[in-house]
């Protein structure tokens, strides 16, 4: 009889799931697992990070650039708590992850043992599901179900907490018959009647807008969305998470919706008579004040997560379904219409498009240039030119993130990897490393602020160690820029604790890590410095000194609506 250890079962189960990449950081509780991983290094490559938060963000970058499940391995106690920010981030942005955490041996659980923390309790509110595995015989089944849960329906993180003795215990068989097996298939079926009614409403709408979110990328619905919008000439306003789900350069695209969205997108939603919400959750950064959001509109809401439907906005028509499947149904129904009918439907919206074009002309995204200072928006435009619009861009959170969203026209899904829901500073660099690892032949650029960069810059060592040639553009204004902007606009310019101008020399810091450092301080240096950094073979950091008190416009103040938008 072949007796194997829990650690062996775990690693074999991971290999069985097709895992070839793990981001992690060892510690006492996971020693058996690391021992086994060493033996399995031909099948699974482990990437040693410098902080557990970095491991989770890397796994997110890996998952979001490919659609595969990202895998993380950390130890108990502080290993697990350091990972929590990343887990919460993945939960809010619907990113499929399996995070394996070590735990103290079973007999020490509950004794406040060294490096003990109630990982299952701490992570419970920010995971799709989590496990405390008490028996090595359950490991294979748990891993199988964890991967299924992470990637099915609305994707998200799953945590597997494994006591050290379980990884050492020997088992001669695995059981797959615990409750939950076979997997519950709660996948909602498409309601054909609702699809027909939705399409009828869309065909007859005079002022429709498509509000497209992260669900487009997660379900791979970008092509169907494009076909559908083109067939009926529907205006499309993507969310931050939806950027790239519909090409920003497309004539039907109104630009991003929401707090820092375009004037045209926000006005179109404010004036529309039908809001077609696809793969979205009516986040407050999109809706502002709910009571006056899209006040004239009937709402059609398509989302894979039934709990998203009616959570913030009660739709008049709901489809709890995969958005790709729903769009394909819409398209096949559209194709059954005669050319004359389609023409009529499209023509009836001519005056709507005229109004939209008017908004676009009157209030385009704009900024004023400067001969002496580098404008942050121009950095993004230059980056777009130099990368020909093809780079994978990751960001931190704040002003630079919004400028990326506004001034880098994304044309493909999975091209922008940003922390949308949780708003995690420090996400950009590790996410870029994970994306670079998954997409070796692509240019991956992390656009970060000087604040966020300093939260995770230790991962430069990881990038250098594994020769993952990410480029990091630091939009350096010496401030926590977005907070400063709010203090300027809403707190009488009281700049309370936002000055971070005491910072390391980022060029020297890069060099200290073994990466290349570049600097641009004046407008005429930007092009060359950026080009040199992007052309550098290895990891490159470019420190761009941008104008210090630039604001992101337009802005819809929190709790307000499109009509309260401040455009300049």
């Amino acid at each position, binding site marked *: 009889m072949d007796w194997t250890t829990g650690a062996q079962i775990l690693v074999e189960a991971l290999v069985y799931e097709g895992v070839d990449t793990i981001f992690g950081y060892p510690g006492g509780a996971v020693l058996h697992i690391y021992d086994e991983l060493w033996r399995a290094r031909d099948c699974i490559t482990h990437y040693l990070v410098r902080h557990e938060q970095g491991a989770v963000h890397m796994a997110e970058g890996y998952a979001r650039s490919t659609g595969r499940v990202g895998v993380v391995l950390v130890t108990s106690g502080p290993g697990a708590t350091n990972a929590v920010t990343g887990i919460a981030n993945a939960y809010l942005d619907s990113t499929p992850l399996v995070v394996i955490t070590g735990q103290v041996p079973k007999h020490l659980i509950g004794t406040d043992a060294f490096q003990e923390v109630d990982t*299952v*309790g701490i992570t*419970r*509110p920010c995971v*799709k*599901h989590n496990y*405390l595995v008490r028996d090595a015989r359950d490991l294979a089944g748990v891993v199988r179900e964890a991967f299924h*849960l992470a990637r099915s329906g609305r994707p998200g993180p799953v945590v597997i907490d494994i006591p050290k003795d379980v990884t050492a215990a020997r088992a001669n068989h695995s059981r797959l018959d615990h*409750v*939950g097996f076979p997997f*519950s298939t*709660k996948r909602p079926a498409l309601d054909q009647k609702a699809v027909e009614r939705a399409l009828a409403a869309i065909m007859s709408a005079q002022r429709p807008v498509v509000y497209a979110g992260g669900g487009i990328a997660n379900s791979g619905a970008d092509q169907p969305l494009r076909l559908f919008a083109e067939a009926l000439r529907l205006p499309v306003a993507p969310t931050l998470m939806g950027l790239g789900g519909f090409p920003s350069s497309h004539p039907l695209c109104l630009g991003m919706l929401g707090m820092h969205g375009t004037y045209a997108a926000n006005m179109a939603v404010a004036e529309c008579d039908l809001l077609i919400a696809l793969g979205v959750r009516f986040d407050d950064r999109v809706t502002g004040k709910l009571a006056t959001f899209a006040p004239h509109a009937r709402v059609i809401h398509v989302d894979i*997560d*039934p*709990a998203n*439907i*009616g*959570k913030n906005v*009660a739709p008049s028509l709901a489809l709890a379904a995969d958005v790709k499947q729903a769009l394909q149904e819409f398209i096949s129904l559209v194709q059954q219409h005669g050319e004359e009918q389609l023409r009529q439907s499209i023509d009836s919206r001519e005056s709507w498009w005229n109004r939209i074009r008017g908004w676009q002309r009157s209030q385009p995204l704009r900024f004023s240039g400067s001969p002496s200072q580098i404008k942050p928006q121009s950095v993004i435009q230059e980056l777009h030119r130099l990368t020909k619009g093809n780079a994978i861009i990751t960001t931190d959170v704040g002003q630079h993130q919004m400028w990326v969203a506004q001034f880098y026209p994304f044309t493909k899904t999975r091209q922008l990897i940003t922390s949308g829901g949780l708003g995690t500073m420090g996400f950009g660099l590790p996410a870029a490393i994970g994306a670079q690892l998954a997409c070796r032949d692509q240019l991956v650029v992390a656009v970060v602020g000087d604040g966020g960069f300093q939260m995770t810059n230790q991962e430069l060592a990881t990038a250098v160690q594994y020769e993952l040639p990410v480029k990091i553009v630091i939009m350096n204004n010496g401030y926590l820029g977005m907070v400063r902007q709010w203090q300027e606009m809403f707190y009488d310019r009281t700049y309370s604790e936002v000055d971070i101008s005491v910072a390391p020399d980022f060029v020297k810091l890069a060099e200290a890590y073994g990466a290349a450092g570049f600097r641009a301080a004046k407008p005429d240096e930007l092009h060359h410095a950026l080009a040199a950094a992007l052309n550098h073979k290895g990891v490159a950091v470019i420190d761009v000194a941008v104008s210090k008190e630039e604001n992101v416009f337009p802005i819809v103040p929190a709790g307000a609506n499109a009509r309260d938008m401040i455009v300049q």
Partner: protein
Amino acid sequence: MRHTLSIIVADQPGELSRIVGLFSARGFNIQTISVGETLDPRWSRVTIVTRGDDRTIQQIVKQCERLARVREVQDVTTRPHIEREMALITVAADAGTARQEVLSLVSGFRAKVVDISHTHLIVEASGNKEKVDTFIELLRPIGITDITRTGHIAINRLAAGDIVSEEEDEDEYLLRQGR
């Protein structure tokens, strides 16, 4: 409006706290909660009495349904159902008129005396919320020193749900009498 939700969840460690945690994290209200085994011991039934408008209740149901180990969530309130709660009440009642008063209430409410001392009685009452509430209110002036209530359990009526039990008649009768 008050709703009674019946949640069938795997009988595994931590599953109850997932449900309770969901309620507190999303700001839903729990008035009573009770948990017990179902016919199949691998599954527990959690009965939660909560309050909210239709949209809130719908959200609660959907959020609970997202939990991986929740098999089924039912709003029992939407169909004819029977609800019961049990209370154990310690009443200060020595051998005088107070004790007589308690005993007459006990018989009127089909409650039971389950423990007796020189100075106190423990009585057990069960029924729907209104009945138990009323019983407690009537005992209060006599002198309640402790109460423990189970929280509600509920079950939907059979298809021929217009046949009511003797006790249900009794409860409704008492309420009509304004007792």
